[in-house]
């Protein structure tokens, strides 16, 4: 069935081959599966040739052309892999058998004719800029006509994979004249296969790739495709859900929902207890040897925010969302007297300085000006990088309270929530992010509600948000121009569902994109490397993860989180001593600021006898990272060193371990 000889595999500049691929994309599949309705939907697939007579003629016409085909690829490049060809019979049959869309023929024919008219180009012509733009217009109108059926969940990316593989093998099918269709292939393909886009564009330059590509596609597509009829997917999906769900849980759900409502009502009183409790906690800590008046002043102001539960759509404490809490400021802050602590903080971060120091600067900035949204965002970001997730969440939530549409805060929160296990909240936050940046994909009023979600609902929410993001990704004209922020969002979504391979693709796409977004600007790239590393690590690819972390640390040696992650990966490959070293050095980065902070505090407070270490300790330790201490303890236990493990308490000075470990 290799009408095109080797041309099918070629993606590098051979218009006909690309056309072929394009045409071979079994679009009826996309018709069937709601998601797939992309520009490809317009052209139909090989299958349609079998069913529709006008296509038959074209097909025959095309087939007659095939003798010419082999020459083209040779002109353009060397060896084409044929390897993918064999893949497709399975898929071809598979796809054909499952096509049920009644409308594909209609969809196919109209744009078909129009496209043909537009693309009367003799074979072998290089496409020109106009053709491409004409194509794009066509593309645009075709995709908009399919836009509505396209919305809604579905396994688009998965559907595409078998499709592409199937496409590779099937013959010219459409027989649609015009080599320039091949060009359409490239730009259309990439938006569709979002995360695979960058892979493709790389492949276009490499000849060996097509084989891998198709095989890779096939591999990923297999076993994951769920057949959903486009019009009835929702019902089908719901049925599938029911099918999967344990019956008891299902039966109980309506009762449980009722119970939940009752619980909700009874919990509202709890809110007051919370703020009282928090107040008590603050008071207790602050009371330890500190001046009473100062304390009460701080106590009042820090509890001020306790009553307005940041109503940006999240009824935080009642659902499975994290309880919204106020940020806990360090009591002594050497930046308090600085004229412009915000700028100092920004400078420290851009120079890759100590993150605890930067955090202190931003704390001073927001204490001076509590409405400074950017400072709150920077504070959150600094604390997250400093491996102080809770502090980061509090700061970013505060930023959201001030500016509910702040994109940086939303993305940062989504990541933090994912790390902490508040998956549903993370998904809702991502949805919100999308509604701000791409309101035409989802309007702010259509956001999911903040209700408590069980596992099934959470899966549905995840599905929904993922598809919205895929829609956004499809807007990119090609692989190089993807919105890196959308890719990061997608990456986080896939990571949350433990779809690590896809997540890796997304983060890589973000790294390679030439479009400038918030995620890949120079000062943020180290974060991307870390995200990539964490995804690799959690999917078992420890060595690659370590390489990614090293890249992040090369850019920002003080990136505490990356160092923590490096430690975790060392544990995973069994290098416990090294892991301990990394964790200790991370703790050291925290301590060094505490120590210099203490020196400063001594100066400020005039030194003297009443300045005990304990008191100083209380001054510089509001947000301790329990993660680092817990993990260190675990490493020592795993090494069999209970003696060391016992020494690890929150706040311990890493120096005491210097004898045993290098850091």
């Amino acid at each position, binding site marked *: 069935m290799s009408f095109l000889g080797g041309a099918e595999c070629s993606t590098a500049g051979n218009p006909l081959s690309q056309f072929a691929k394009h045409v071979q994309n079994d679009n009826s599949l996309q018709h069937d599966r709601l998601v797939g309705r992309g520009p490809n939907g317009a052209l139909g697939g090989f299958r349609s040739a079998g069913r529709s007579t006008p296509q038959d003629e074209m097909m025959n016409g095309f087939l007659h052309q095939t003798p010419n085909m082999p020459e083209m690829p040779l002109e353009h490049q060397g060896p084409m892999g044929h390897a993918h060809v064999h893949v497709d019979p399975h898929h071809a049959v598979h796809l054909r058998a499952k096509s049920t869309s009644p409308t594909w023929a209609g969809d196919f024919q109209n744009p078909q004719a129009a496209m043909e008219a537009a693309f009367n180009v003799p074979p072998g012509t290089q496409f020109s800029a106009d053709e491409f733009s004409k194509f794009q217009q066509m593309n645009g109108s075709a995709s908009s006509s399919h836009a509505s059926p396209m919305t809604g969940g579905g396994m688009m990316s998965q559907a595409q994979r078998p499709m592409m593989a199937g496409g590779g093998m099937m013959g010219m099918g459409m027989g649609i004249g015009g080599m320039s269709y091949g060009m359409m292939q490239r730009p259309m393909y990439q938006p569709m296969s979002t995360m695979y886009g960058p892979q493709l564009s790389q492949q276009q330059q490499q000849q060996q790739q097509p084989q891998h590509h198709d095989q890779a596609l096939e591999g990923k597509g297999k076993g994951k495709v769920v057949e959903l009829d486009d019009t009835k997917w929702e019902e089908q999906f719901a049925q599938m859900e029911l099918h999967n769900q344990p019956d008891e*849980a299902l039966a109980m759900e309506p009762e*449980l929902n009722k119970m939940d409502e009752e619980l909700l009502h009874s919990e509202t009183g709890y809110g007051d207890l919370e703020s009282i*409790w928090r107040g008590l906690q603050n008071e207790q800590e602050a009371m330890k040897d500190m001046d009473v008046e100062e304390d009460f002043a701080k106590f009042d102001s820090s509890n001020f925010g306790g009553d307005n539960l940041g109503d940006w759509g999240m009824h935080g404490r009642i659902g*499975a969302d994290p309880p919204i809490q106020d940020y806990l400021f360090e009591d002594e802050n050497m930046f308090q007297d600085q004229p412009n602590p915000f700028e100092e903080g920004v400078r420290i971060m851009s120079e890759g300085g100590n993150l605890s120091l930067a955090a202190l600067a931003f704390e001073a900035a927001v204490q001076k000006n509590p409405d400074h949204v950017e400072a709150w965002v920077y504070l959150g970001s600094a604390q997250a990088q400093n491996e102080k997730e809770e502090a980061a969440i509090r700061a970013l939530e505060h930023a959201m309270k001030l500016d509910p549409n702040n994109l940086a805060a939303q993305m940062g929160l989504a990541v933090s929530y994912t790390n*902490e296990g508040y998956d549903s909240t993370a998904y809702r936050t991502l949805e919100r992010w999308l509604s701000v940046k791409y309101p035409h994909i989802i309007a702010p009023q259509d956001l999911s509600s903040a209700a408590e979600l069980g596992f*099934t609902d959470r899966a549905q929410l995840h599905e929904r948000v993922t598809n919205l993001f895929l829609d956004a990704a499809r807007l990119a004209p090609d692989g190089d121009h993807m919105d890196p922020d959308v890719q990061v969002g997608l990456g986080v979504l896939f990571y949350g569902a433990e779809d690590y391979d896809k997540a890796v693709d997304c983060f890589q796409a973000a790294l390679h994109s030439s479009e400038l977004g918030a995620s890949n600007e120079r000062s943020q790239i180290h974060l991307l490397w870390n995200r990539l590393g964490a995804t690799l690590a959690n999917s078992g690819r420890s060595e690659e993860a370590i390489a990614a972390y090293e890249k992040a640390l090369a850019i920002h040696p003080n990136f505490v989180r990356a160092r923590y992650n490096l430690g975790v990966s060392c544990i995973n490959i069994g290098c416990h001593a090294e892991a301990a070293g990394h964790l200790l050095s991370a703790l050291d980065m925290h301590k060094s600021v505490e120590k210099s902070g203490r020196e400063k505090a001594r100066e400020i407070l005039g030194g003297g006898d009443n300045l005990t270490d304990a008191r100083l300790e209380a001054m510089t330790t509001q947000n301790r990272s329990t993660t680092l201490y817990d993990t260190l303890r675990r490493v020592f236990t795993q090494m069999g060193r209970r003696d060391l493990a016992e020494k690890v308490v929150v706040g311990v000075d890493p120096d005491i371990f210097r004898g045993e470990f290098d850091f």
Partner: protein
Amino acid sequence: MSLKNDKFPASAAFDAISQALATDADKKDAIKQGNAVFAFTLKNTAGETESWHIDLKNKGEVGKGLGEKPTVSLTLSDADFGNLVTGKANAQRLFMSGKLKIKGDVMKATKLDPILKKAQTKAKL
């Protein structure tokens, strides 16, 4: 007094969780977060079952047995529970694949995630 039952190797995790709830502050935080009593019934390869509960509603403690009035009960194999606490499996997946059965207030089951995350050593995004 260990909570671990040697016939259920993964139950060592209950001791670890108990340690994480050592101080009053930890207990209060966990109660605020969980606000439920989570009962676990593990089944080992021999077919025996044993229960533990994590009380994050009243006392902030881990104990043997189902506890009084568990808000939500989770039933799974000892092996799966082991994977769950180390982070190799996630509750969502176990549930969707039927390996984890939930009775009671199913909505509260998702609250386990943040609590379990604290016990896991995973890389951070």
